[in-house]
């Protein structure tokens, strides 16, 4: 495949409340930031990820286009998925060989509605959605099936929140405490916080990447897989689609210094570590991960951005990023980045 690298990454200072910003106002600064960091003002291809149901209106990505300065008109597309899949589409487009750069961005304001109930709408509308099981209840089913120990989950949350406090972009959340349950066996702190935010990445191919970045984060593997929707057809104790995507991306072909995992519930980190066969020495979610900031529709892209940033800044040689979609880790995308 053609060599493609992440050469710039930017994200908002994520908030746990609505700051009154429109989508345009949320996105515009991060777009400007990656343009400055990459040194590019025009791109061969642009792709974004967002969700109309978060905005509560159709075509939420249309007004976002105003943030790009898309004039003269640009070659552009959009996925109604986490922007990690927009990055995948851009990576595929760069494989054609006729364009050398791509801008990818994602954004979401989950403060605007009841995210737990909104996510129920992504279930089978005839047989599952009417049951009214919300996102946390679904996750709790998986946590029960997996049977994670409480001490282990608490340690994941404590570590994530501590790392998040050291990350100026993530939320400042206290060490986990309290005995009550959100939905048994999950406590409120096992659940990623409601977050507003946006992120953007610039990809460049071959010589352009080498020219624009001192230490490009080369994408040496990227793959995604979906699995059946119905929980009754799945073994909830593992994530076969993450396993398959990880193998296809070549996670195991070398050491993994850092892994940024899109674990929106603490137990998902355990399932994903096993699925991706991460070595014990791999540092997981040094950014704090989704448990410290979860701007839905950008969270997966931020995992790629954070994993790439560790390479761009010289701190790591080989990193892995994971993004997920659908209930109980139904759909997983794995990216391997190397210096």
């Amino acid at each position: 495949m053609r060599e493609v690298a992440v050469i710039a990454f930017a994200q908002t200072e994520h908030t746990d409340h609505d700051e009154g910003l429109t989508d345009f106002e949320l996105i515009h600064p991060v777009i400007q930031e990656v343009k400055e960091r990459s040194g590019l003002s025009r791109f061969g291809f642009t792709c974004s990820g967002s969700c109309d149901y978060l905005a509560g209106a159709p075509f939420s990505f249309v007004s976002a286009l105003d943030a790009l300065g898309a004039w003269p008109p640009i070659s552009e597309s959009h996925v109604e998925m986490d922007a990690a899949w927009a990055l995948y589409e851009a990576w595929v487009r760069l494989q054609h060989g006729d364009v050398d750069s791509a801008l990818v961005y994602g954004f979401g304001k989950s403060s605007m509605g009841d995210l737990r109930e909104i996510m129920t709408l992504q279930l089978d509308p005839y047989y599952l959605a009417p049951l009214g099981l919300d996102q946390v209840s679904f996750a709790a089913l998986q946590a029960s099936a997996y049977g994670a120990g409480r001490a282990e989950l608490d340690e994941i949350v404590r570590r994530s929140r501590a790392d998040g406090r050291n990350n100026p972009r993530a939320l400042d959340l206290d060490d986990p405490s309290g005995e009550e349950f959100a939905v048994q066996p999950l406590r409120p702190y096992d659940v990623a916080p409601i977050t507003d935010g946006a992120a953007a990445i610039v990809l460049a191919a071959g010589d352009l990447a080498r020219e624009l970045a001192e230490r490009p984060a080369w994408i040496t593997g990227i793959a995604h897989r979906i699995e059946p929707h119905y929980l009754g057809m799945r073994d909830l104790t593992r994530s076969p689609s993450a396993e398959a995507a990880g193998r296809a991306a070549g996670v195991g072909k070398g050491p993994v210094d850092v892994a940024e995992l899109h674990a929106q519930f603490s137990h998902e980190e355990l399932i994903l570590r096993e699925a991706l066969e991460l070595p014990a020495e791999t540092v997981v979610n040094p950014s704090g991960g989704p448990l410290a900031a979860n701007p839905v529709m950008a969270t997966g892209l931020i995992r790629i951005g954070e994993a790439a940033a560790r390479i761009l800044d010289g701190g790591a040689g080989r990193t892995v990023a994971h993004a997920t979609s659908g209930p109980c880790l139904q759909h997983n995308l794995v990216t391997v980045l190397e210096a």
Partner: protein
Amino acid sequence: MGNRCAVIGVGQTRYQTRRRDVSIAGLVREAALRALEDAGLTFKDIDAVVIGKAPDLFEGVMMPEAYLADALGAAGKPMTRVHTAGSVGGSTALVGASLIQGGVHDRVLVVAFEKQSESNATWALSTHLPFNASLVVGAGGYFAPHIREYMRRSAAPDHIGTLVAVKDRQNALKNPYAHLRIPGINRQMVESTPMLWEPIRYLETCPSSDGACAMVLASEDKVTGTPAWVHGTAMRSEPMARADRDTVSPQAGKDCAADVYRQAGITDPRREIDVAEVYVPFSWYEPMWLENLGFAPEGEGWKLTEAGSTALDGDIPWNASGGVLSSNPIGASGLIRFAEAAQQVRGMAGEHQVDGARTALGHAYGGGAQFFAMWIVGAQKP
């Protein structure tokens, strides 16, 4: 453009107001199975699935690819959901083709659908973000002023829209999948229907349809049966809020056409393209797009329509299938254009086949006439 890519299978459902007999999953599966059958393949042969549809509010199912993975045989494979407003059907085909052109996969299933009977699309299109005043109702309310401006600029006579409405519905009578099939359709019938958004009458608008369309795309090595080769693909977008943007003949449409023509080696679209399937949801968009796509000089698109050039027996048939004016499962409408273009160059369009069609244009647009997706397909390998 990357590796060669061809359409080797096309499947459509019958388009109609309500498909009460199938769920959303049943609807998309029907189209997918027909496309696979056409290609002589099964779900097992498919490497990846790309699905497109217009806003999720239309059916009230958010990110429906999660729920539809099973029905489309996607489990264990990559699946992608595309959404680029009204152009989404076209974009879905292009994202699928891109996977092959980029050398990532060999056989990709692309599917697009809308089940408009599950909700009210005009309502779903009339809600706005907070603090944005909603001054229009539905897409017709938005586009009618652009049409009036076109009529002012071009001095086109009032009856041009009626001619398109009649021509496309006459074509639909030859298409077994078409939603609106109105025997004896004529100008008087169109002119007697109520005015919805001046100058758009009821029969000058597209219907609300349930339906799905699917295609199997293949790399050169995996071509089976009768291929339609992809000669060019392009997408263009421009911002909604640019003050001096020309919404009557958008720059993004001109640029997208120029890009796709350049790839396909087309310098004179009127002469070198044999048939075009173009997104015309309101009758007047035929003359407007004739100009935007370079088939006629500015201000003269309506003359081609009036002369009958775009009729099935004209020198450049537009929407031989009956077009969006005859069938409109919104999210699928663009993919249907792309698929019908492919069927024409495969010689498999049935009763609405344009004799000897070798090169065809598929076109879709969306948003405030700001998103464009196009491809050129040909009977010959590029």
